[in-house]
Each structure stands twice: as C-alpha cells, then as structure tokens.
C-alpha cells in the first residue's frame, strides 16, 4: 500500500471545527457517534475560531517500546494494538506525548489509518486533514 511514514496531518488554517472527522472515526471503529470515543480529537476555540490543539497518532512508536506485554507493535509503518495481548495497564496512554489514545472500556485504542484509507481525511470536505 505504500504506507511508509504515513500519518494523519492537519492544516489548521483550513479546519472549521465541524467534528465530522471524529464522528466518522468513532462510527467506523465502535458503531456509535461520539467525539470522545474518536481517535482523532481536535480542540477548537469557538471564541476566535482557531484550532488550539489536536490529538492524533504520529506513528512515532514510543508506545511500542514501553508496552510491557508486547501488545503494541509495528505493522509496516503503522503502530497497532493487539487487544488479545493487552491487559489494560494503560502504560501506552501515559507514555504518549500526543495524547493520541482513546480509552474505551479500559482498553486503549489508536489510529490505524483505516487500512490505508483514512476515513477522517476522506470526510474532511475542506481538505484540512490528509494522510502523508
């Protein structure tokens, strides 16, 4: 798929804060709509209309080294979670510099680039999100 080094990027000047990326993410992963379940969270300042910060995995791999149970691993250039091995210690969540994990029912979840076709980028009609 040619996914080497790919991750989700945001151009904050194009983002309008509509939350559609978070909605499609939580829907595709958990079948429900809730930005808090999403693996991409954009913190938007509605007073001045600016992106304040963004929580999204940069596929840096720091969590892979720290996981005591080997549940996080590289698949190509993407870090994935094996929930069969995960015991819910959440070391990865505390390790992550980018606040990229979301925790659902005690288990960590993270961006896996939707098997190469990230839905958040597809649904971003402004083109603020892109995989590169």
């Amino acid at each position, binding site marked *: 798929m040619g996914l080497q080094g790919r991750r989700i990027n945001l151009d904050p000047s194009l983002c*309008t*804060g*509509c*939350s*559609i990326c978070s*909605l*499609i993410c*939580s*829907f595709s992963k*958990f*079948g*429900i*709509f*809730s930005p*808090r*379940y999403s693996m991409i969270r954009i*913190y938007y300042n*509605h*007073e*001045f*209309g*600016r992106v304040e910060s963004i929580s999204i995995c940069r596929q840096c791999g720091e969590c892979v080294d720290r996981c005591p149970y080997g549940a996080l691993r590289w698949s190509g250039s993407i870090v994935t979670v094996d929930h069969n091995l995960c015991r819910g210690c959440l070391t990865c969540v505390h390790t992550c510099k980018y606040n990229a994990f979301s925790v659902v029912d005690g288990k960590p979840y993270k961006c896996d680039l939707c098997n190469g076709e990230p839905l958040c980028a*597809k*649904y971003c*009609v*402004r083109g603020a999100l892109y995989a590169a």
Partner: protein
Amino acid sequence: MQPKGYTGRILFIDLTKQKYVVKPLEVSIAKQFIGGSGLAAYLLWNMLNENVHPLSPDNVLVVATGPATGALAPSAGRFMVASKSPITGIWGESHAGGFFGPEIKYAGYDAIVITGRSSEPVSLIINDDEVTFYRSQHLWGLDTRTATNIILDSLGRDLHVMVIGPAGENMVKFASIMVDYYRALGRTGMGAVMGSKNLKAIAVRGSRGVEVHNPDEFTKVVEEFLYINTRGPWALPAQLSLGKYGTPNLVSLMNAIGRLPTKNHWTGYWEHADKISGEALLKYRISRGSCFSCMIMCKHITMVGGGKYAGTVTGGPEYESLVSLGSNLLIDNAEAVIYMNQLCNLYGLDTISTGKVISFLFECYERGLVSEEELRGLKPTWGNEETAIELIKMITYRQGIGNVLAEGVARAARIIGRGSEYYALHVKGLEVSAQDPRAHKSVGVTWATSVRGADHLRSLTTVDELGYRDIAIERFGAEMANEVCNRLSEGYKGVVVKDQEDLFALVDSVIMCKYGTMWPPMYYFDFIARLLYPLTGIEEFSNVKHLREAAERIVNLKRCFNLREGIGKEYETIPKRFTSEPMPTGPAKGHVCNLEPMLKEYYLYRRWDYNTGLPYGETLEELGLNFVLVELEKRYSLPRRGNGGSS
C-alpha cells in the same frame, strides 16, 4: 424495543425545589412527534395552560434535541428551546446550531424540561447523570462572553454552554440565549424566560454516544451525505455562496430582487447595499467556522482591526442582523453594524427584534410621533449609528425610552400611541424578519400563519423566490410550476407555503438545519425517511407518508397551542404597510401583497375552516390529536366538515 438514535430519557428539573428527575421518553410519543420541536410541542401542550404567564415560575422551558442530533447527519448539531413566549404570549421556539445540542444527547437526554424559579441566580451544570445547581451570583450581570469564559475556565473547557446576558436578566421581551459564544437562540424572548427563572446558564458535558439501529445501512446514508455535499449539483453553489460569504451573501441577492428591507421596511431596495454585502464583509473575516457535523460551513467570525470600533470580535453578522441593524436603519458603515451585532450578542438581545424596535423609533421620530421630552436628548435620525448603539444599551438596561422599546414593538406602539401602531411592524407581537411580502408574495402567508409570529423560519419558501423550475415540477407538478416559480404572483402560494411548513416542521423535529432544506434545496422528505429509519429502527419513519402526517400533526398541535391562548384567525394578517403601501422603489416597485387569496388556499390545504380559522374536528381526529380536540372544545365549538365546511 427501545429505538436507537434517541436516548429515551427526559430530564425534568424543578428550580424552585432544586430537584431533578429522569423520566422515560415513550416510544409512541417519539413515533408521533419525532423529537425537537414536535416533542416540545407535546410536552408544552400538556404542561401549560392558558392561565400561565410567560414570565411566571409556572412557565416551562423545554430544551430539546431530535433523533439526528449528535449523529453524523446533515447539520445535526442543532437543538431548540421552546416555551410560552414573553413577547407574543403564544408558542415560542428558537433553534440554534453549534455544539450544545449533541452534548445533551451524549449526556444521555433527549430533552431537558425546566420548571419553577430559583430564589437566587443559579446555573445548571449537567455531567452525564449528575446535575449540579451551581450558585451564580458571580455570573449575574455579566455579558455572555465573559460568563461563558468563566464557566469554561472554572469548570472545564470541554463543557458547552448556553447563557443569557443582562438583557435576559432584565427580562427584555426579546432577549436571546447565546450558545457557544455566537450561536443565538434569538427569537421569541427565550432569554427572558431563563432570566425570569433566575437561571443564568446551562452547561453540559456528556461521555456517551449516539447509537444507530443499522450501522451498515446508515453508512450508506453518510456516504450519500458526503456525495451530496462534494459532488452533488448543489455542492458548488453552496460553497460559492454560503461557504464563501455566509448568509451576508444574501444582501446583494435580495437587493437585486427588491426584497432588502430598508428604512423600517419602507422599501425593498437600497443603493448602499454593497457597503454591507458579503463582499464588503470579507475583509473583516478572521475565521471560517461551522456548526457540528455540517459540510456547508457558513459560520464566520469577524473582527474589526482599526478605527472607532477596533477590537470588535463577533460571530456573523448574519443576513438578518445585517439588514435589521444596517439597511433597515440606513446605517451603511459595516464596522458599526458589526459592532452593534457584537453588542446584541454580548447583552443577549435578538438582533432582528432589536433592529426593528430601533427602526420603529426612528420612523416615529421622523413623523413627529415621539416628543423630545420622551427621548431625553437622543437624536433618532436615519443612519445615526451613535443613537442606535446608545439605544441597544438603553433597551438592555431598560433606561428611558429603552424601557418602552424593551417591551417589543407591539406593546411599545400601544404605549406611545398617536397612530404609531401603523409603523410597528409585527405579526402576533413578533417583529417582522428581513423579507418583504411585496417583492416575494408568499412571505405574506408565511408571516401571517407562522406559529410564532412574523417569522421566516417556519415556512419561508425559496422555490418561488429563486425560481427553481425543476424542483417546482418535482414537488407540485408541471401544471403549477410556472405560477409557483413567479415570486411576484400570488398563485399557488398557499400550497407552496403549506408544503414548506410541513417540511420545516419535520426538519425542526429531526433536527436539521434550514441550510440544506430551505436553501440549497438538497434534502426533502425522501432523504429524511432514508436517514431516520436506519438511525432509529422505527419502521414508520421509512414511510414518507407517515413523516408527512407527523409533520402535519406537529403544525396542527402548535397552532392549537395558540388557539388555546385565544390567538386565532383575526391575528393572522400582516402589517398594513405591506398590503396597502405599494413598494416605492426598486425592482418590485408598485407591488403590494394581496394576502387573502393565498391565505384562503393555505387554509383549504391545511384542512382548516377559512371562516373561523379553526381546524375541522375531523382534521384533528385524523391526525390522532384527540386529546387536543377534547381540550379545545371547552373553548370553541370546532366546525365539522359536514356542517358548514366549505371544502
């Protein structure tokens, strides 16, 4: 089976006792009234009666969401509040976008029902199942922005807040509620109802999500939503107008068809319109924003960087505000209009009503109907921005003549007297919105029959306004299309308005935005049916006929709410200016609005009696509104189609 989409829970809050209780939302009610506006109508019909004063503790404030709220559906961030309106004394409702509505759903409620009155200023902090009555003496008197910031900074930035400003606290009859800084629940004075309950703000945070009945089917709906907005026929027009300019784009369009209210609706054409047009406002834009789950994205933030009004930062101004505070007052300084828009937002005033009461005073002054003594040195002359700004402050704090204007234009005219009633432009007490029935005939019947007064959001039609022939053929048939598409003709406008009112009743209950349904006309009943069934799993919702019937039921219920208050056909008219004063200038020059034939047609299609304005008994029975019929018959003898009905 519990339907999805809904949370199935309604939160009842008693401010007097500072107690709350959660009750289930019955499935049969959801089927009949859908949610949002329909659900609020059902709740208010049962909880209120004609003796309740709008500003008394007995009045009920409903904050409602619909089944689509919080999901990935077109503009599904919207929610509504409803109550008995302090400005009209009848049905009051107001809708807003932003991010507050979904948060209510995520906290686990379809609606919040607020009764009673707190003995001291209080705010409601709702955290999933936990409701806190938060003492708010420190927030009382603050403007909406400061109050929002204090709540967010002290209780968490991930809360979403709706708050009133000083106008709501002082119970200005057209006070608004501000949501997420710049989204306004503007019309019908819902802010005054909150103020009367000593309720400063509601803040919500929810950790749940909206579940879907059939995720696979719903994925198709979501794909269709994306397709319509990126590759559909309306995608590019929507982005080039609403997307690029927001609603201010309408200023030049409306001026071109002679429908831009100017000088207290004296005419519909203004030679300086380009100074407050979408193009003129572009240079003040600092951000392009959007509401929750919206692909049109028409919400912009504006800043004035220099000059007299430097430092003004505000959402909008939207078309209605630009007209009410700009062309309507002959103020051609865009910076002044942006500043006035900010003032209204901070004080919590409805920009439409504020502009119209100020223009009313300007016109009274021009015609010598108010004395210098009453004005205490004010110079309310056309185009005088300093006076307009001063008046906004005086209305908010009820000082001098502002105290009279704060009662709304209908009561103000009654207080001032001397024939000023002619210049008080309102229907059923609500100030007219920024349309003109002389240049767009169907607006006449829209205003006259709208359940909350002169209002553009219950049934304003764009098929005739912009002449969409294809859509006219699709919805009304080829025979009617030519007449329907002519905005300067009265032909078939009763039917068109009835159809649009049904659509909007549904849209307001689902809840979606008027952008996407009013303009561009992307979604109609069939799309809503395709959306609602996989979302909720309620089989009836897949049937367009059922949805149309539900929409009619909601329209009838709200009308019966007004009938119970004694507001019937005699109030269903429009100000004389539009029926007897021919348009003096512009493209629609010479036109007046001939209301009666349209009204007659509208009543016919609504299955209401034209002579009395009452619904036929059979109409209510067919819609399953027997409980309404029983109560109305205590007051009226409802006509039957068999005896005396003309249809």
